[in-house]
């Protein structure tokens, strides 16, 4: 392309550093916010007021901030669930199904110890049942994750299709369990799961769920795993070059299975966080499908963070904040329904579009004189 005396050319970039990626992402976020201003303007709202509302609520409000953090924990776990298979070059689109299975796993443990009866008397102390619920959630997610992993490794089945289909299966499995006389149906009969007895509420830290430590710890652990351990090395090698990994003796069967088990386990824990540790919830809610949809932001956070679990932390926080802040602003400014999802959508598209600059750079050159 020519602009006056200059020639604009695209060149391939070989490597993007962490700082470049951060700068590109921040630029993308600013542009997304600028674009979203159009929606405020269309609703005759001053964009500055709109953003002030969103950010104040999301990050500096006594009600908004906990909501933001809850969402961020959930998104961070889903992001990690996406990142681990992605490092092996495999796409986990099944965090929704895995988190449903995780929720069912956790509540199955609670159910087994008599938590559905409504009485506070459990056959075991909460100190044992709560960890067991987490194990149940992890197992449930891992089990559902193992399916695409096994099929990929053994039969080279497309993992995207399998994980997507398992989302539907998971969705209806939850419906089967909590609705219309299902085993986990709540006492109210309103199409939601039974409520946990108070003794099984997850412990809190500074007024928030303890799962924040779990999520941050897991993100840190995964970072370490990929940077320093043999397992991380094998996963990355498989992701970069399956044929070279095979040459080096890395099993082409076990790696897909392993990464999907880890991914499913993480998504399962996201399910535990959402329904068993989230203050004020403590049951599988009627609108559990909405959270399944929210889990897809794990994909986008994973891609933006360049598959780096630590970089995923601020990004998950941002997405969590915008999701809760935009929902609040929508009511406060009397805008139409769905502002929060529109906001996340615009942000997502802009960030994905800006990934272009991870791989390409624009070069300005003075035009050569025509021969």
């Amino acid at each position, binding site marked *: 392309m020519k602009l006056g005396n200059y020639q604009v050319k695209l060149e391939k970039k070989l490597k993007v550093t962490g700082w470049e990626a951060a700068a590109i992402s921040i630029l993308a976020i600013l542009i997304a916010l600028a674009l979203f201003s159009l929606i405020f303007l269309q609703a005759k709202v001053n964009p500055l007021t709109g953003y002030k509302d969103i950010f104040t609520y999301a990050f500096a409000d006594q009600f908004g901030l906990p909501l933001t953090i809850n969402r961020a924990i959930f998104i961070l776990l889903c992001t990690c669930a996406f990142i681990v298979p992605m490092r092996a070059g495999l796409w986990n689109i099944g965090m929704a199904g895995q988190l449903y299975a995780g929720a069912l796993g956790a509540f199955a443990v609670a159910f087994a110890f008599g938590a559905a009866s409504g009485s506070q008397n459990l056959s075991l102390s909460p100190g044992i049942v709560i960890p067991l619920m987490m194990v149940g959630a992890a197992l449930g997610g891992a089990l559902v994750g193992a399916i695409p992993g096994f099929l990929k490794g053994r039969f080279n089945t497309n993992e995207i299709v399998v994980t997507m289909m398992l989302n539907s299966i998971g969705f209806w499995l939850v419906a089967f369990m909590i609705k219309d006389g299902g085993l986990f149906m709540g006492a109210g009969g309103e199409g939601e799961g039974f409520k946990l007895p108070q003794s099984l509420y997850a412990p809190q830290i500074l007024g928030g769920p303890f799962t924040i430590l779990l999520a941050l710890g897991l993100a840190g652990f995964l970072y370490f795993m990929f940077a320093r*351990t*043999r397992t991380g*090395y094998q996963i990355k090698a498989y992701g970069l*070059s399956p044929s*070279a990994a095979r040459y*080096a*003796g890395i*099993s082409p069967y076990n790696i897909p299975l392993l990464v999907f088990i880890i991914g499913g386990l993480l998504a399962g824990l996201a399910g535990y966080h959402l329904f068993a540790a989230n203050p004020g919830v403590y049951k599988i809610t009627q609108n559990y499908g909405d959270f399944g949809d929210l889990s897809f932001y794990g994909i986008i956070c994973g891609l933006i963070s360049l598959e780096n679990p630590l970089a995923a932390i601020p990004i998950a926080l941002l997405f969590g904040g915008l999701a809760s802040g935009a929902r609040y602003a929508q009511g406060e400014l009397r805008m139409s329904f769905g502002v929060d999802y529109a906001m996340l959508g615009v942000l997502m598209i802009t960030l994905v579009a800006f990934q272009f600059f991870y791989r390409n750079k624009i070069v300005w050159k003075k035009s050569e004189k025509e021969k």
Partner: protein
Amino acid sequence: MSMVEMKRGDMVLEARGITKRYPGVVANDHIDFEIRAGEIHAILGENGAGKTTLMRILFGLTQPDEGEILIFGEKVNFKSPLDAIHHGIGMVHQNRKLIPAHSVIENIILGHPSAGRITNLKRTGEEITELCTKYGFKIDLKAKLWQLSEGEKQVVEILKALYRGAKILILDEPTSALAPPEVEKLLASIKLMTGSDLALVPFITHKLPIVLSVSDRVTVLRRGKVTARLETKNATEKSLAKEMVGREVIFRLQRVEVKLGKPILQVESLSALDNKELQALKAISFSVHEGEIFGIAGVSGNGQQVLAEVLAGLRNATEGKVSLDGIDISHSSSLERWQKGMGYVPAERIDVGSIGDYSLADNVLMNYYFDDEFTKWGILDSKGIRKLTEALISEYDIAAPGPDTTAKSLSGGNLQKLILARVLSRKPRLIIANLPTQGLDVGATEFVQNKLLEAKKMGAGILLISEDLDEVLSLSDRVAPIYEGEFMDIIPIEKARREDIGAMMAGLKHQAVKI
């Protein structure tokens, strides 16, 4: 498209003094070459002899540094394949460029100027049928490509070129992907085609019987130069093999005499299939001793790649037994084979032997991550592996800034040194070196060969697979020419005569050779 009328024997294409230099190598060195109407002119040469470069130049894919091309006496300067097509040159690629889900006719008209907007399939079909009748092809135009055999696909490629008005048809190794019965069919068609005014130029690596059976004239290339230009009727398989392989020895490596130890690798009637599920190895048996270099000489695609992969544990054998140091490893994984002292230097340096996005240290780790030496509780000893990498970089004189450089930034020769360094540093008892010097410059080649000799001195058994006969003859203690998945013979080096081995590589001295 040229509308010049051609008569049989007219000069249609003349190339004079074609020279093409690439860094470190002269791919084509003043090649003169001519094609006449109605002839099949075979171009013969080993890998790396310059055939591909010449072909790319003739089809406009690359431009020569020197020399000129005349078509029908007119000087041409191809900037792209489109120019070549306009001058009546057609090319049938070795890797088919066809669309499996489309029908034959759709594939033929794809990219044809008249098929730009509205296609009159009926008229086109009639025109193609006419072509088929003229040249004696039988093919169902409505069949989908995926339903066809490799031979039929080849016919589609030929028709496609003819339909675009090709008068000179370049066939790149036309028989290499075909099963024997299909080869015969295709050769019959090719012979029929020369009844007309077409000129055919098959570029053939090594299949001497095919050259002799169909061509009128042969041009032999070796190391970028024309070494012979003959009428096929005056040539024999032996004379062609001699011209193709040459006599002179380029390197004077001192073969090291090492007292042979006990057999380290024993292979008993090993059979395996290739990716096309064709029988690629036919009950091969041999053994490699400690301190011995066992050379397998063969032209690409005769089963040596499959053999290397089976031995390295990357491909399943259908039959047979492999023992390493007396222990049956037929069913061991590749990892177990590494751990038991096997070292594999693969031919595919970029896709298999290294990970381009990994640092050099992480590439060295490819052969070490499973050892306790560099891991503790599953945590990698990054410092240790960096130190080892630095040592290997200096010992093997690898041109790289340091262990953190990515492997993809290395040149081919340096990458090969890195792979070799990594494999040899494990002090393997058995080394499988698959095309260890292919594509390397003279210096790197010598370096790699010397390293193999050093390993031999240390008592390692080495299985050397090479397409370079000079290399096999100068390094090996025993030589096994391989042809179509079988050893033609296993010859001690004292008794190995290069003419014999060259002929065996081309399938001679064998009862079952057809065509």
